[in-house]
């Protein structure tokens, strides 16, 4: 009531100044509001969003994946492999063995060169002395027998000593076991028949071959094993582990085609699962490098499939390897977990205590602005 009466009086200089100050006050409140809410809020939202580089999400999703059959699993897919040859010699003081890992490597190279386009094979060898097989064989007439059901228990104690996990590549373990002079060992299958090759393998791990020194070498205490059966057994074991049917060009080509299909399939599956994860979990970050890798993987997978249809296996293999490398690199990049400690529901708990105390006076001053605006309107109406 008092204010209205004042406004009906002729304007005095102090009132004019008051009005000017009032307008300045209103402008300052409005500017706070504009900067904090209209400018600041979008900037905050934009800078605290989870960064995701642009991705071909649709391409990643809509892929036709071949149903993975429940086949006996093999060596994991990789671009390099270690072939670790371990010579296990339980009785070094009783028998001197003249064998060089380098000789076996030289003889393995022709076969490895044939399958070299598929992956990089690095051959290493080591000697393990005073180590036994860990299972007790049964005596049969003049030799000792290892039953088929004892064989799985041979591998674990050996593996503990072989340090095949020292390198960063998956290892294919080829073990050569020299039996004691006094106990020649032979492997018997479950029908109680001697296995002529005296070797076995475990898919995904590698193979074991048992060599018995002959009587004359035992007497002279020097044994020079024949390289041919050793190299042949190793090559056959590698063929079985990688599921290659033979050494002919046709078989190698079949192996390459299968590898291309597996790598492209794995790439597509990885990218599809990444797309699925991105839609489910909001706090996964996709940096620009990861985005580039994903784009490269998608393009190369398509190229590889195209070349395979045309029949150019080598080029298809080359692109499949690039696609596989990039898709695995993108999925297992450590930067995806950059927002590990900042899940979505805790975001509000962090920002509300920061911004709410600032916003309260701003919003309350808006009420003042509204009141001033209404007061300005009223005398104008009345004067008309």
């Amino acid at each position, binding site marked *: 009531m008092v204010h209205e009466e004042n406004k009906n009086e002729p304007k005095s200089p102090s009132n004019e100044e008051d009005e000017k100050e009032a307008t300045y006050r209103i402008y300052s409140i409005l500017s706070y509001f504009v900067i904090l809410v209209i400018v600041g809020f979008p900037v905050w939202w934009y800078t605290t969003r989870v960064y995701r580089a642009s991705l071909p999400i649709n391409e990643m999703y809509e892929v036709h994946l071949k149903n993975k059959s429940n086949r006996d699993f093999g060596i994991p897919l990789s671009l390099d492999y270690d072939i670790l040859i371990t010579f296990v010699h339980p009785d070094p003081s009783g028998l001197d063995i003249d064998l060089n890992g380098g000789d076996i490597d030289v003889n393995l190279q022709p076969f490895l060169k044939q399958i070299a386009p598929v992956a990089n094979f690095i051959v290493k060898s080591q000697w393990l002395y005073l180590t036994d097989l860990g299972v007790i064989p049964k005596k049969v007439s003049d030799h000792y027998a290892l039953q088929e059901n004892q064989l*799985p228990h041979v591998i674990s104690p050996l593996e503990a000593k072989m340090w095949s996990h020292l390198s960063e590549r998956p290892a294919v373990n080829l073990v050569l076991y020299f039996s004691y002079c006094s106990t020649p060992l032979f492997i018997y299958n479950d029908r109680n028949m001697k296995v002529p*090759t005296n070797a076995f393998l475990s898919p995904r791990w590698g193979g074991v071959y048992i060599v018995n020194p002959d009587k004359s070498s035992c007497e002279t205490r020097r044994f020079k094993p024949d390289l041919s059966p050793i190299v042949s057994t190793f090559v056959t074991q590698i063929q079985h582990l990688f599921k290659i049917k033979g050494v002919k060009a046709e078989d190698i080509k079949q192996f390459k085609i299968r590898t291309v299909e597996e790598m492209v399939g794995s790439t597509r599956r990885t990218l599809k699962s990444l797309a699925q994860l991105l839609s489910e979990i909001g706090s996964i970050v996709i940096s620009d490098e990861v985005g580039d890798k994903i784009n490269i993987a998608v393009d190369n997978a398509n190229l590889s499939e195209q070349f395979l249809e045309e029949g150019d296996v080598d080029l298809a293999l080359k692109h499949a390897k690039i696609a596989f490398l990039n898709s695995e690199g993108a999925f297992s990049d450590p930067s995806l977990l950059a927002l590990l400690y900042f899940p979505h529901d805790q975001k509000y708990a962090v920002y509300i205590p920061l911004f709410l105390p600032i916003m309260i006076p701003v919003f309350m001053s808006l009420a003042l602005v509204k009141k001033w605006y209404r007061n300005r309107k009223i005398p104008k109406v009345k004067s008309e």
Partner: protein
Amino acid sequence: MLFLKALTSYILISFLINLCQAQSINFPKGGQTNNWAVLVDTSRFWFNYRHVANVLSIYRSVKRLGIPDSQIILMIADDMACNPRNPRPATVFNNANQHINVYGDDVEVDYRGYEVTVENFVRLLTGRLPPGTPRSKQLLTDEGSNVLVYLTGHGGDGFLKFQDSEEITSQEMADALEQMWQKQRYHETFFMIDTCQAASMYERFYSPNILAVGSSLVGEDSLSHHVDPAIGVYIIDRYTYYALEFLENVDRQSNKTMGEFLQVCPKSVCISTVGVRRDLFKRNPDYVPITDFFGSVRPVSLLTEVKIQPLTSKRQEAKESNQSKTINKYRYVPPLVNFNTVITPRIGTQ
């Protein structure tokens, strides 16, 4: 009299027949091809000795049943065996009788001390470790792996405390397992957790093929079993104690089922109620052999024939000269003299 004899013999025979039939039940094949175990102890300080004993006892059982060290990831947050307060240095016992030293000579701890963090744990599960991490610290599972995850420490409603300074929430745990599922890093998972309010950790799981068991429900505390006065701390937790009692009677050929394992530790002895989550698990736990998760057998196939490879007779000259330079670089050296032979002193004059 004769009738009674006939009746008892009939009962005996039918009982024996039932017993034989029970042993010949063929469990349907689980479909896994290898087994892995991730065993984590998350608490430090001497008075949390029992958590280290828990995880080491499970480690011993799992190793005994066949999972090799290369497929076990063992994370222990503090060193109890070499703790200055340990009156029995280099040992960790899980029983006041101190029968078994669960630390032993061949324990392989993959993540020790301050390396046991939430970040490393999640990175391990999701496979996003920095490049250059040794393979023994990576979880190299694939779509055929059955994974056993065992966590122990101090927990609360919806979180598990790591190292007394950080927590992993149940949502992060569920997200990590979902990332494993999407990348096909497990075939089936058995999730065991022995902490207070353990059931809250598995409540948020949403990925398939997970069977989870927790030692207590939300709002309950898991209690420790007994104190060892010689060492001065509580030595093992109740749930793990009874779980170990069960596992002690399991060997590689055992036909005990997961259903029986889930019944272990009833409320009368455990005081807390054991919680189980089985809705995400497709199979019926009563028909799943316990060795599907706790043991491991390597598949083996015999080599039936070998194709003879021709030897390369040519040896490169360069290779030979290299070999002659490095000849005898590594050779066998016989072990030291056996000092066990007693040398009798010669008595008498020279």
